[in-house]
């Protein structure tokens, strides 16, 4: 049986890297006594896969992993059992059954939501952020410099920004997030600093991923959670 678990990673847990987060959950699942399936062989490992790695330094209220179990109790009981095993900053939000032929979360991720705030003293000064940000997003093209290990290149990221707005001094973004087309929120904001004639300072942003989506039809997004059903 395939299960999709949604969880939050908050506070100082932002310093826990992706692989260590996986290890953390492998152990939490054992502590919670979840009847997870194991691979065969001398070093059996749990059948578990994460939807999308979250960078170190980012918090999230919309992380996902898929697991396979032999048996299960109700969604509510399983969420409670897992939460009894969580450390401060980690919280399991939902535990849902997905169809047996349902695709793995990691293969269907298409978009993600982010809430971004500026650290104190690092916000772009002297401007109306909301108005300027709207102007920035409505440009015909948004050219930013993308740095890779080997080179720098200019790219237009406009197509990857599905939505964007300013809510209470925070910036909301819905960005392309598939493996083929993945846009980092920092890149969008550093482009904004350039747009207003500045340069993004180091450690300027606090970023929280708030949801991860699959695509259903052209630019129609459905959260990974909504692809599963509560187990009564």
């Amino acid at each position, binding site marked *: 049986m395939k299960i999709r678990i949604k969880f939050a990673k908050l506070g100082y847990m932002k310093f826990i*890297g992706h692989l260590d987060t996986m290890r953390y959950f492998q152990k939490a699942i054992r502590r919670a006594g979840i009847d997870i399936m194991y691979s065969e062989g001398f070093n059996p490992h749990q059948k578990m896969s994460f939807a999308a790695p979250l960078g170190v330094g980012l918090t999230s209220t919309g992380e996902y992993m898929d697991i396979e179990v032999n048996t299960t109790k109700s969604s509510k009981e399983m969420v409670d059992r897992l939460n009894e095993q969580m450390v401060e900053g980690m919280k399991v939000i939902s535990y849902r059954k997905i169809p047996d032929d349902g695709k793995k979360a990691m293969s269907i991720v298409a978009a993600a939501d982010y809430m971004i705030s500026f650290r104190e003293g690092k916000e772009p000064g002297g401007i109306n952020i909301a108005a300027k940000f709207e102007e920035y997003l409505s440009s015909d093209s948004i050219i930013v410099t993308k740095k890779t290990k080997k080179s720098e290149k200019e790219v237009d990221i406009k197509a990857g920004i599905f939505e964007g707005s300013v809510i209470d001094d925070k910036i909301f973004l819905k960005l392309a997030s598939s493996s083929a087309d993945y846009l980092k929120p920092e890149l969008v904001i550093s482009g904004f600093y350039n747009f207003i004639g500045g340069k993004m300072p180091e450690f300027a942003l606090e970023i929280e991923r708030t949801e991860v989506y699959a695509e259903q039809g052209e630019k129609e997004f459905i959260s990974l959670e909504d692809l599963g059903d509560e187990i009564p």
Partner: protein
Amino acid sequence: MRKLALPDEILLSIDKPERYIGNEVNMVRKNPEDVDIRFAMCFPDVYEIGMSHLGIQILYDMFNRRDDVYCERVYSPWMDLDKVMREKNIPLFSIESQEPIKNFDFLGITLQYEMCYANVLQILDLSGIPLLASERTQEDPIVIGGGPCAYNPEPLADFFDMFYMGEGEKQYYTLLDLYKENKASGGTRLDYLKKAASVPGVYIPAFYDVTYKEDGTIESFKSNTKDAPDKVVKQLITDMSSTDPEAEYNYYPRKPLVPFIKATQDRVVLEIQRGCIRGCRFCQAGMVYRPVRERNVEYLKKLAYDMLKNTGHEEISLSSLSSSDYSQLEELVNYLIDEFHGKGVNISLPSLRIDSFSLDVMSKVQDIKKSSLTFAPEAGSQRLRNVINKGLTEEVILKGASLAFKGGWNRVKLYFMLGIPTENEEDMKGIAELCEKVAEVYYEIPKQERNGKVQITASSSFFIPKPFTPFQWASMCTKEQFLDRAKIVNTRMKEMLNKKSIKYNWHEADVSLIEGLLARGDRKVAKTVLRAYELGCLYDAWSDSFDFSKWQQAIEDTDIDMDFYITRERDIDEILPWDFIDVGVSREFLKREWENAKNELVTPNCRMKCSGCGAARFGGGVCFENKN
């Protein structure tokens, strides 16, 4: 939520910030204001190493059972953070409360290997605690050292307020009670040290005076106050056989800490016994942890179950100096396999003798294709194995290898030492010849039954005489002698028929010399440790950061004669720097064993025959088996 000592800007610009933030599963949370005593427990190496240490997990659990104590952890900041903390004047902090170590009542530092001594000074320095105990005031924590290197504390005597000799379970509650009493009655730091000095196992360097003869050896070593005894007696738990978790001294953490980052020991560690019956003459642990005391097998089963459940670890490992000597091993291992194997739990069994039982067990729990067999003959000839009292014979090794090869294994690791007292060229060549014989055993198996080629890896470390071993008087080799011996082995290896199946490597000789100096050093060596730290030595246990030239400089700057500490054979009646400690094993026994070594005589193990080492006076363990 706790506030972290380091801001995001620092945590996001250093390697592995998880080392410094705490919040691990099973971390103990208390309000520091609600306790009387704050104890910072330190392993002076990086987090992943320190978190793998069982002793600290036991004491962390034991101390925190008390409502009046909050025991927290601290490790050496890695070099990247070390630099930032010095630049920005950030004081060293504990993992739990993230508060400065300087605010604690105690800083306890475990001394597991000599090459961590520079890191001890780093810990003090970054904490803002004066490096010299004599310069500390009422405002500073009491700095206390323990662990195996405390059995020769002298090279660190200047830096510690006190040392504790032995197993922490025995006296720490007393030390904590005394501290609380002293604090409540308005006593000073000195008042406390005076009271602590009479607690068995406690050594307070400031209360002892040393005088030296003209030749640099010790003339006298005496207590200078009536509060401190002339002999400090090692403390240990005599009875470990109880099944009752609440029984006195039967401490063991049911909920060990589970780090986020992968620690060196990323598994449940089950300590099955303490001590070793074997009596290998080079092995300090085998002498100072005497007598052997076994834990009750039913208690261990319960512990294994609880710890796996409370940690979620995927692996459990048995811990002891020689697991094969645990009398209930078969029952325990079969229980672990039946109960947990097949439920995604790996079982690892280090320090097992290779015989049909262990091979059978290993074939059940390991992938034979991926695992290798380990033998530790330590010496290349039977003559030299008799000198070190290593019971392993060539016949046993070859029989074990043959059994294993027939069972499908084809990888073998062999561990040796070079520079053992009395070693001659034949003994050295014997290392290569023994490897060759192991390879030949493999090729005696019919081709169709073999699993490809045999791979033999032989490693040599360099022998370092340690305090409280029969070799404590022995001469240690120079760097040139070590390397010449490795060359003799290597040349002989190249002459072997199956040389292509054998890989030979040997340790760095430089680091062995410094370890040798620190292992048998006296108080005069403390200034060398200090100088080395001032010159920038740090993380000397890590080959990438060990800088021999800095140590050489420190040795020169402090007028230390390496020959005096390294190559000089000590006179049998010389007062050794650690002679004021009573570890149970008597000086008479060690002398006898030193003679036996020179005469190539084997001493039977504790279960075969008691050799009267002196440990029986602790009143427990193997010395009293079958004597009820």
